[in-house]
């Protein structure tokens, strides 16, 4: 009996990150991360700037190779897949890049249509309907003829969001979806993420610093600092956590265990030292 329960529990986790290590040159960025991402839920990864959140998403997407440990998605080890299988898997993953990364030579409409044209044989009228639907969801249906250079930063990221969800992926990864958006748009995007997740049965992974927003929509949160997971749990659990790391981050306190500074010698020493 306990066997079947274990099996079902495992099944509930779509993405498993196991003892993941990653280094850039000699600098260790991730030092043994364990994260389980439940199927059909919204999971948020928080952490100070530069702690490796974007890196983690790229590891999940198979764009970077870990130095140790691994990522499994639906029981497939991402980094052991051959190219064909990896591309098959990626067709079911969507990722909103932190920079948006729109194709600068294509209009807004063609940007959103790009994945549809690449991976489906839909008729032109169906593609049009789908693209307009996705653009409507991010409030930019009227901007479909503009080129990326004519968009503001926040608009460009919303177009990128529409493009990322164009194929209705099984897993959606959002890298800082709220950055650069006004409060109204933040609310709309929060609703959109929730709606996509619930109505399409997606699994969502959000990377964000916006504590209030992610607490409101996440089912589960992880906090990363200095290459380790320092806190995990539901929003309420984390708010009540007595861990110094978590408290500092959740309450935006400048002092505490989370380093605000990139590793450096002491400030006074640095100033007195003179020229390098």
């Amino acid at each position, binding site marked *: 009996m306990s066997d079947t329960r274990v099996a079902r529990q495992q099944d509930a986790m779509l993405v498993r990150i196991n003892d993941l290590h990653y280094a850039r040159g000699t600098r260790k960025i991730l030092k043994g991360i364990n994260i389980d991402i439940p199927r059909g839920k919204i999971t948020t990864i928080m952490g100070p700037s530069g702690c490796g959140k974007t890196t983690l998403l*790229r590891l999940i*997407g198979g764009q970077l190779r870990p130095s140790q440990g691994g990522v499994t998605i639906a029981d497939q080890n991402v980094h052991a897949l051959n190219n064909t299988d990896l591309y098959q898997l*990626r067709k079911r993953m969507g*990722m909103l890049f932190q*920079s948006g*990364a729109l*194709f*600068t030579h294509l209009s807004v409409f063609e940007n959103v249509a790009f994945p549809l044209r690449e*991976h489906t044989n839909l008729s032109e009228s169906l593609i049009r309907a789908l693209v307009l639907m996705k653009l409507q969801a991010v409030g930019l249906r009227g901007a479909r003829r503009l080129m990326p250079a004519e968009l503001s930063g926040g608009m460009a990221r919303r177009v990128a969001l529409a493009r990322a969800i164009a194929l209705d992926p099984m897993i959606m990864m959002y890298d800082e979806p709220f950055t650069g958006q006004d409060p109204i748009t933040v609310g709309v995007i929060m609703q959109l993420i929730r709606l996509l997740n619930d109505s399409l049965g997606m699994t969502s992974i959000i990377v964000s610093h916006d504590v209030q927003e992610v607490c409101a929509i996440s089912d589960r949160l992880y906090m990363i600092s200095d290459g380790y997971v320092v806190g995990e749990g539901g929003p309420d659990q984390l708010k009540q956590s007595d861990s110094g790391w978590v408290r500092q981050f959740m309450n935006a306190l400048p002092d505490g265990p989370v380093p605000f500074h990139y590793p450096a010698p002491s400030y006074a020493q640095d100033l007195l030292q003179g020229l390098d």
Partner: protein
Amino acid sequence: MLDWLQNIGQAGLRVFQRLGHATLFMLQILVSIPVLFRHPRLLIHELYSVGVLSLAIIVISGLTVGMVLGLQMYNTLVDFGTEDSLGPVVALSLVRELGPVLTALLFSGRAGSALTAEIGLMKATDQLSVMEMMAVDPLKRVVVPRYMAGVISMPLLAAMFSAVGILGSYMVGVGMLGVDDGAFWSQMQDKVMLDEDVLNGVIKSIVFGMAASWIAVFEGYDAVPTTEGVSRATTRTVVHTAFAVLGLDFVLTAIMFGDQ
């Protein structure tokens, strides 16, 4: 002294490492070429921006080079009373040497640098990464069409260069300096061999086209993804293409015409 040796050694290793990367990259391109049969529109679009948009500079340069050649050669030939052979002299220099070489150099300045900058900027702005994440291989989608467009365009542009150049020398020689019209063309027909001269010229331009396009797409794909990195890669494209073309030209010329 030891430091100095070590630096040379390291630089040498880096060069070979990059050459290795570039070779692997080339092999990947070659095995991906069949993708163009499935998406011919990608190729057509690039043929336009790589080939058609280079036409203006090629035609203008070809015309001026031909005119200058006509003038210079006439001045030498007329001393020996052999100005009637202006046609073959100009045609041979253009078809065998100047056409392929100058076209390749102009091509790398006009189209090669643009290819590098475009691919490098796509990399720097995450557009290549985002494609990968959408399960679209940027090598097939971005690199292969551009590479093939370069390979196809080069021989056509070189042929255009030579043809326009001959026209330029005709205008100067026959039109201005009074070389006999019939002699200009008939001597040319007599002396320029299709299998030796024209064919060898075409082979040269194909080889140069492959080298120039390879360097351009590799430098772009391998660029450090920053503003500075892309600008350096663009410069490298032009410089390396010049070296490669001139070096290859010597080797090819030695093979083709060395035993005559």
